[in-house]
């Protein structure tokens, strides 16, 4: 859940109510609250108007900075821990195209790998 969504939920505010105060479209507020549009991707003025409408500092509705691969200010273990915490568990769930594209399952989907590759010739790892 985004920080904006948490504030709206805690104050029992609708998207329309905030949008009216901020002179924005309700859809804009909804997209930011649901995370459909990352708040980092909109104009600073839009963020300021929403923060002002909620009487909170701008930083209160910005999302925390995500960990970055290779960040030398953190140890490898700390980087990976932060990444698991921030990327695998947090954030508002977003719509995602399912990989399930057919109701029918092909027969080989359940074959163990040994059977699947049973007739495959041995691979020469040193081939030119």
């Amino acid at each position: 859940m985004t920080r904006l969504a948490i504030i709206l939920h805690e104050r029992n505010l609708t998207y329309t109510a905030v949008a009216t105060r901020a002179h924005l479209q309700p859809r804009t507020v909804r997209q930011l609250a649901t995370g459909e549009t990352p708040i980092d991707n909109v104009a600073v003025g839009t963020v300021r108007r929403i923060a002002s409408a909620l009487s909170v500092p701008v930083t209160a509705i910005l999302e925390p900075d995500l960990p970055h691969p290779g960040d030398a200010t953190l140890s490898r273990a700390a980087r990976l821990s932060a990444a698991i915490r921030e990327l695998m568990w947090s954030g508002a769930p977003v719509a995602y195209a399912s990989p399930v594209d057919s109701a029918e399952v092909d027969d080989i989907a359940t074959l163990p790998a040994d059977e699947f590759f049973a007739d495959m010739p041995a691979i020469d790892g040193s081939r030119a």
Partner: protein
Amino acid sequence: MAVGPEVYRAVGESDELSSGDVAFLSLARTRLVGESPPGETYDPLGRIPAYPRPALLALPHGREVAVDAMFGLVVTHSCEIDRQKNLDASADHFDCRLTVAPIVPEPAVHLVGSNGDDQTVSWAAIEANEPVASLFLPPIADVSVLASGVDALPWPRSFADLRGLVTVSRSMVEADRLFGLAPDYLGTLQRQLARFFTWRDLARHELVEALVGRRVVDAIPLNARGDRLRVALTTDDGSSVTVELRVR
């Protein structure tokens, strides 16, 4: 259904790279500005999934690069990773790119089907590795068991999404590896890759399926290249398909 202890193995920082390695990576995609996902209609064969919160780099002429920081699964086959080494090439001449699939965690998404319908039930199919485009990654109660030094955190149920394959630097994979797939489950990864590339890129699955049970009445060689021979097959109901055969 695969479970954690059967699927994963610990990977040391100095261990050699392998397919099945899971690492924290920057994955880049080029696209038209704001294209998320491409296309106006659902296309299970061609749609590129959108990932949350990309960093954007503007390019000229309405293009941009979207960069996602996320975990990825190395799918490059081990023999490709080791190829230069096997050929006695120096490390400077090793392949610098590895192919990885983004890892999609359950808490970050709600799956949507072709009609915009919520597909919560899809996870049962994903767990069974039924879709050709995904490899199920089971949850882990405590990641620190596999990755020493990492906090005692759970790893959610997730899948590697083969629709989003990208290439990354092998040095980046080495820098932020978390754990790897156990040898037994690597076979399942390879099976999924074979299904994915055969079903989606090489074969017209529906044409091949339509020929099942038919009698082939004509086979016309079209052209040969190297050890490959393209042949047009015609069946007793008049339908046809072109296949590529490898000559042994």
